[in-house]
């Protein structure tokens, strides 16, 4: 049976099938635009190796565009390159480069407007303004693309993958660098972002605005202005992501602003200036995260209620937790703190003395940032010690009652 199937497949492949159009330098059809115009809905267009100097290719019917041997579409810095205005369009294996820069229009390598069930995969997008710009399109997939540009300033650059008002989109395995924001989501619902590598972007690796019920798992954010910014969003799951070296004068690993009911689990934050910056976030659970060698591990700016930090590892951070108020409604329990100095007499792995993660010095630095110049001074150590013995300025109920003695790996 299988042999016959294979034979059938071979037969099908060799036939000059109906519904297929080839584009190449010496073919009958020499430009992609021509092929799109000729094609019937649900046809497949094969584009052979070569450089196609084209822009504003408008796709207004369901089509499959497949590159063979990585053909190049060069827009010569002029307008949108591909505009998709129909459902069920697939674009794969192209190199698309040189998108025009505009201060008034969001020009993109691939623009999708009201196009559902799209599938864009295995493309290389180079020197783009916006990479893949998706507007009001649902149920799509953006997989294994490499989007890059040479962004220098925020106002002269665009985002790698930009979704506006979309639902149920999968963004998986993409690499994004040299852009303003690696991935930008605005009014995006029920979407999943997995296995992406967003690095060296000048603003954010991943940016959520007004997007609810989204998940992002297993992504890596490196050396961005800020790793991930999640703003004005609800019900976001953030799991197993890695935030590395988002290091600079105003850099964050994860920036949360007006977030409700999020889950932040099993992430690794290493060497960020501020690993997690929280502002106005409520009911967020932080479980099993590793925060290693950051400047500030958790910086709480205010208006944060009912957040829970459990089973995290705080290792060698300059400041573990920083608060700017004396109020605390968040719970810290069962974390490992590398600067914990207590003891464990009954050997159950839990320290017998509660740990106070907020140091007086971090409070002072929050008030007067210049005082950071006194970091690691003997006087500061004495101050911290006296505050630890009898808290006056730091929230006195901000205590980890059961600090772990050893790092937990799970």
């Amino acid at each position, binding site marked *: 049976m299988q042999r016959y199937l294979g034979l059938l497949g071979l037969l099908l492949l060799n036939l000059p099938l109906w519904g297929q159009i080839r584009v190449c330098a010496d073919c009958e059809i020499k430009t992609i635009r021509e092929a799109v115009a000729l094609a019937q809905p649900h046809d497949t267009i094969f584009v052979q190796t070569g450089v196609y100097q084209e822009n504003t290719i408008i796709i207004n019917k369901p089509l499959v565009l497949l590159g063979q041997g990585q053909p190049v579409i060069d827009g010569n810095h002029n307008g949108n390159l591909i505009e998709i205005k129909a459902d069920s369009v697939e674009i794969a294996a192209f190199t698309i480069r040189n998108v025009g820069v505009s201060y008034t229009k969001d020009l993109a390598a691939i623009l999708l407007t009201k196009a559902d069930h799209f599938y864009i995969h295995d493309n290389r997008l180079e020197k783009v303004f916006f990479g893949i710009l998706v507007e009001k399109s649902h149920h799509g997939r953006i997989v294994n693309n490499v989007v890059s540009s040479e962004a220098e300033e925020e106002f002269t650059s665009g985002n790698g993958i930009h979704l506006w008002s979309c639902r149920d989109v999968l963004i998986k395995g993409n690499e994004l660098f040299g852009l303003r924001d690696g991935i930008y989501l605005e009014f995006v619902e029920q979407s999943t972002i997995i296995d992406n590598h967003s690095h060296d972007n000048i603003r954010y690796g991943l940016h959520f605005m007004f997007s609810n019920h989204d998940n992002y798992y297993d992504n890596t954010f490196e050396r961005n202005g800020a790793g991930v910014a999640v703003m004005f969003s609800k019900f976001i799951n953030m799991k197993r992501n890695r935030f590395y070296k988002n290091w600079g004068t105003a*850099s964050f690993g994860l920036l949360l602003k007006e977030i409700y009911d999020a889950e932040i689990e099993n992430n690794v934050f290493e060497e960020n200036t501020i690993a997690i910056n929280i502002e106005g976030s409520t009911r967020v659970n932080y479980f099993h995260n590793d925060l290693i060698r950051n400047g500030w591990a958790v910086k709480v700016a205010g208006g944060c209620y009912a957040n829970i930090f459990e089973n995290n590892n705080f290792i060698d951070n*300059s400041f573990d937790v920083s608060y700017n108020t004396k109020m605390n409604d968040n719970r810290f329990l069962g974390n490992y703190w590398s600067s914990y100095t207590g003891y464990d007499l009954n050997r159950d792995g839990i320290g017998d003395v509660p740990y106070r993660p907020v140091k007086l010095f971090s409070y002072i630095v929050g*008030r007067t*940032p210049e005082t950071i*110049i006194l970091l690691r001074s003997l006087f500061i150590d004495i101050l911290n010690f006296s505050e630890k013995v009898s808290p006056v300025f730091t929230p006195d109920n901000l205590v980890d009652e059961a600090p772990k003695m050893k790092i937990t790996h799970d």
Partner: protein
Amino acid sequence: MIKVLQYSFYDLIRSRWSYVYFLFYLVLGFALLFLNNSISKAVITLMNVIVVLTPMIGTIFGIMYYYSSREFTELLLAQPLRRRTIFLGQYLGVALSLTLSLVFGLGLPFAFYGLGQSAEMGNFALLLLSGAFLTFIFVALAFIIGLRNDNRIKGFSYAILIWLLLAVIYDGIFLISLIIFEDYPLDKFTLIATMFNPIDLSRILILLKLDISALLGYTGAIFQKFFGTQTGLFTSLGVLIVWTLVPVYFIVRLARKKDF
């Protein structure tokens, strides 16, 4: 001068305290490396120790040596020697032997743990350099106190006081003034205030090398611009040299006028 230096130096090298000091650093170095397992982390911990301890040991050891070698000094004064020669010789003898204890005491364990291949080589060298500077500065300060006070108790108290002042109280006043004047631009003030305290200066010099510069830069670009660059490094080192030379000049001046 070289002769006097030699005498003081050999006298100290043979003394028990140099060995204790040397052994202390040796044990500290090994313990830190053993516990931390990574050179870069050990360097950070070591910084805290060096910035606090070397000035303290320098002042106390300096003043102790000055008083205990008083008879020897009087003997030398009876010889046809210039006063400058005698006191500078003694000063350099003490400072050099302390510096050697520091450099070998810490250098050996780090060399043993393969510092040569590590990227931390430069940071470690800077650490030892600032440790050496602090030793030279504070031994000089101790000698000045010794020359001005014949009463030993007074001399000791002043020595401890000056260490306390520069290591702790100065930072306290610094912190309070930063908080009081927080409404004003403080970048320049902070920069200048650190220059007036060798302990602060070496602490910040090392901190910036240890990649905490981004934390500092948070307050304003001026720190980053100043300390982060080569110019900043050389200016800081220059200020440390001035910090060494000015007390030495005072030693010479005081020694010339002093009655014995």
